[in-house]
């Protein structure tokens, strides 16, 4: 029940935020923040809960709720949270609050509608992270698109129509391929068990012919790989990111990309263990290409937000690498990377958005020497750049390091190649710092009259994210423990299924 409440809070909060605009222009942001905090408290109550012992459910579920929805097709409203979902939920709510904060002063136009869209996107994401019925999952998967589209299309920058449209078409078409995959699974369940079902646990029992399993798995992979994104499907991301308002970028980079990774871990591998194992070399190759190619492309960008967007693709490559390595360390690494990248990328986008808000450009060739003008911002930027490049002691290092260790056991060549990504990461991260903050300041290049340093509100947000990254880097065990049971089960299931064939 608590999960239903969680989603309802966000949906209802969104509507309230919209309505409250008619009372007071600044009310929506308080309503939004309030609902997010409430949702956050609700999620926190799940930490440390003893796993349920439910018959028929594999895995360690902390809470679980099931009700009939469309019995005609065996579709139920089934939601549940295990360690992995819980981590993702915490990340979602945390970054939701950050996004709310970054929009605080930036969005002045129609802000009631903005916070409505923000909360509905988050509600969709929360739904994705807790859905245990594939139809429900797909439902939420699509529900988060429309408000995100609106966020980009209404509050975006100069080329917003193109970017929003591209984002929508990419995710929608790849989503439909996944839907066909889901339907094939459900139909085979009907053939083998004489009733329709979209239940995650029941669909795991479906035995598919290897060639069909491969096709269906590819449908899922394309669906998730587009969201992740991995290389051939990534081209929507730089456009969407550079055009979205700051809060939109924060949500996109921090949370929406993670739904793709989550889908791979939660659905692709458990549902098609053998097909995923067969496909693993290709997936790891794509991951290595993502890491190296997008790092290279990032280096040649002049648009600050585009650059960060490409680095996101590059970093998400480590997640794909880790997921398809099929061992514990690599999976743990993938999950850690998801969390740490969520924070670091969100922070970098907030910085880029903050800069753009102040000087009205994202073009790095028009910046330079800002260290003296905005020292606090520069130091914050330095911190997050270093985090992104994988400095030991911060979360990203743990994630990428674990992913590489695990992947090395699975596929040495691809891992060695991917490891070069770490070098490229330091090159582009430091290059950004040099271009924007170091060098000599030339007055008159751009209008810097509004270039003020970070204020107290912004510092609070950045400090919170810094603390998160340091925690992940210094004592990752907290997070590893939370997800370990889930991942262990998942690997166990996959191994059994492969051995059984």
């Amino acid at each position: 029940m608590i999960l239903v409440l969680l989603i309802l809070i966000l949906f209802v909060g969104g509507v309230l935020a919209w309505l409250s605009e008619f009372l007071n222009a600044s009310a929506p942001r308080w309503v939004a923040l309030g609902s997010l905090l409430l949702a956050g408290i609700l999620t926190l109550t799940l930490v440390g809960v003893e796993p349920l012992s439910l018959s028929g459910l594999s895995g360690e579920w902390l809470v679980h709720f099931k009700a009939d929805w469309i019995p005609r097709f065996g579709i139920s409203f089934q939601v549940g949270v295990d360690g992995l979902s819980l981590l993702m939920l915490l990340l979602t709510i945390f970054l939701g609050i950050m996004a709310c904060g970054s929009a605080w002063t930036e969005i002045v136009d129609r802000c009631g509608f903005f916070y409505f869209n923000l909360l509905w996107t988050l509600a969709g994401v929360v739904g994705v992270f807790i859905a245990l019925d594939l139809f429900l999952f797909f439902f939420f998967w699509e529900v988060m698109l429309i408000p995100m589209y609106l966020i980009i299309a209404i509050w975006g920058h100069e080329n917003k129509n193109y970017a929003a449209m591209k984002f929508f078409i990419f995710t929608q078409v790849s989503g439909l391929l996944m839907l066909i995959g889901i339907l094939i699974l459900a139909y085979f369940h009907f053939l083998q068990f004489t009733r329709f079902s979209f239940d995650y646990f029941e669909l795991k029992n479906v035995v598919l012919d290897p060639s069909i399993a491969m096709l269906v798995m590819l449908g899922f992979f394309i669906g998730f790989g587009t969201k992740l994104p991995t290389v051939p499907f990534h081209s929507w991301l730089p456009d969407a990111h550079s055009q979205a308002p700051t809060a939109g970028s924060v949500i996109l980079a921090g949370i929406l990309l993670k739904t793709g990774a989550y889908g791979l871990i939660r659905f692709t591998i458990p549902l098609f263990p053998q097909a995923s194992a067969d496909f693993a070399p290709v997936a790891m190759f794509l991951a290595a290409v993502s890491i190296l190619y997008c790092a290279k492309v990032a280096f040649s960008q002049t648009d600050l937000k585009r650059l960060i967007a490409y680095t996101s693709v590059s970093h998400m490559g480590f997640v794909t690498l880790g997921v398809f390595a099929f061992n514990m360390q690599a999976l743990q690494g993938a999950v850690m990377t998801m969390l740490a990248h969520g924070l670091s990328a969100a922070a970098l986008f907030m910085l880029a958005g903050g800069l753009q808000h102040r000087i009205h450009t994202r073009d790095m060739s028009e910046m330079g020497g800002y260290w003296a003008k905005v020292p606090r911002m520069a130091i914050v930027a330095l911190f997050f750049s270093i985090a992104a490049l994988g400095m030991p002691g911060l979360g990203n290092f743990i994630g990428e390091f674990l992913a590489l260790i695990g992947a090395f056991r699975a596929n040495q060549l691809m891992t060695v190649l991917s490891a070069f990504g770490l070098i490229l990461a330091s090159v582009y991260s430091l290059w950004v710092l040099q271009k924007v903050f170091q060098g000599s300041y030339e007055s008159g290049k751009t209008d810097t009259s509004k270039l003020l340093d970070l204020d107290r509100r912004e510092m609070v947000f950045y400090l919170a994210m810094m603390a998160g990254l340091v925690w992940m880097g210094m004592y990752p065990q907290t997070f590893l423990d939370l997800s370990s049971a889930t991942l262990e089960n998942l690997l166990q299931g996959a191994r059994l299924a492969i051995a059984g064939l």
Partner: protein
Amino acid sequence: MPLLLLTATVIVVMLAIAIKRSHSLTCVLSITGISISFLAVFSVLPYAGTQVTPLLIVDSLSLLFSAIILLIAAFIAIFSFPYLANLGDQKEEYYLLLLLAALGALILVTSNHFISAFLGLETLSISLYGMIAYPVHSKGAAKFPLEASFKYLILSAVSSTFILFGIALLYSQTGSLGFASLTESLNNSLSNTPMIATGMIMLTSGIAFKLSLAPFHMWTPDVYEGAPLPATAFLATIGKVGMFVLMLRFIFATDALQFEAVVGALTFLAVVSILLGNILALLQQNIKRILAYSSIAHMGYILIALVAYAANNGVIAVEAISFYLIAYLIMSLGAFGVAAVVSSSEKEYDFVNDYQGLFWRDPWLATLFTAMLLSLAGIPLTAGFIGKFYIMFAGVQGSQWLLLIALVIGSGLGIYYYLRIVYRMLLPSDGTVKFAETGGSSIGSYAVLTILLVALIVLGVYPTFLMSILESVATSI
């Protein structure tokens, strides 16, 4: 009963016009008549499954769609009232035509005999010619209703002859005109003679004309664009649905899908309609034309389920078709309804540009329009999504991979032109277009649109109720 009541309404309205010309009185009378017939549908419910004369059958399928068609007809009458308010001509006869057209559609969905089917079809079409050309004497009519009406008249007549010729060929081989008795003779000996196959193909192409499936779609955009909006809405919703239900009944009664030629033709029609409809809609600037092309694509989507039915006779396919038809009715009526609300017979606002900034001028109308468009695009929370889900499920069940790929490509293209309209509405208003103040007369239209929105979302979020009805309908055929 509903048929008789509706016929009585036609006569009453006609007499009322003869006694006193009053726009509002005529409208109210028509709506009342339609509502009474609608209620009468429920009174007939216990008799479902009876054959009324050799021509008509009252079963759950015909009752379901009779009720829906009557409801839609009432809604269109409500939309028509403010639209026609400024017409510089007699307005009352329009409602007569509307009632007659609805009557034709009712006969269409209840018939299981070629004679009644053809009668219904012609009643529907002939009333539609009148409805399309209705504002022709009005000075303000900016569009080309006469051109549209003639185009529709000629092409529709041609397709009717196709259908007649097909019927004749079938009759020459079987000696019967009833759907059910046709099967008996078909199964006896000559199941696949060239004559019968040709007859079937003739029939299929005639029906494809009426459903505006590509490549028989040429008339659609022009007629949609030229016709006054309520007539377009009627043509796009009731006209299509009546025809489709007839086709369903014919196919199930005669088992026409056993002919490979028919299945092949339907597959071809589906793929071409989906791709062509969506591609041609991409660059249109006129909302009516966009909706015309998109309706071509939507009919193609429904054919997927029909072809899938041929592959494995699943009941899911029938449900899928019915559900999608209902969803399609709601969303296209909603979309045309929004356009009808802002337009009048004097000036139609049917360009995408006209809707720029609608979100900030009239948020509620824009929300309604957005919901309808998103439903047409098949986005969750709306009936269109569940409909598409149903169709895909049927497709998967029938292993129609080619058609499913066409569906995915078509949906991808579709998103572009639907979202283009949504995006236009989101842009800040440039102040050049100002819709006429409709005042109080369009409150009814707003109410109808709101009802449609509620139906759209209820069916999109909790479709179980309708599904169980459709399941019983599907198993009863």
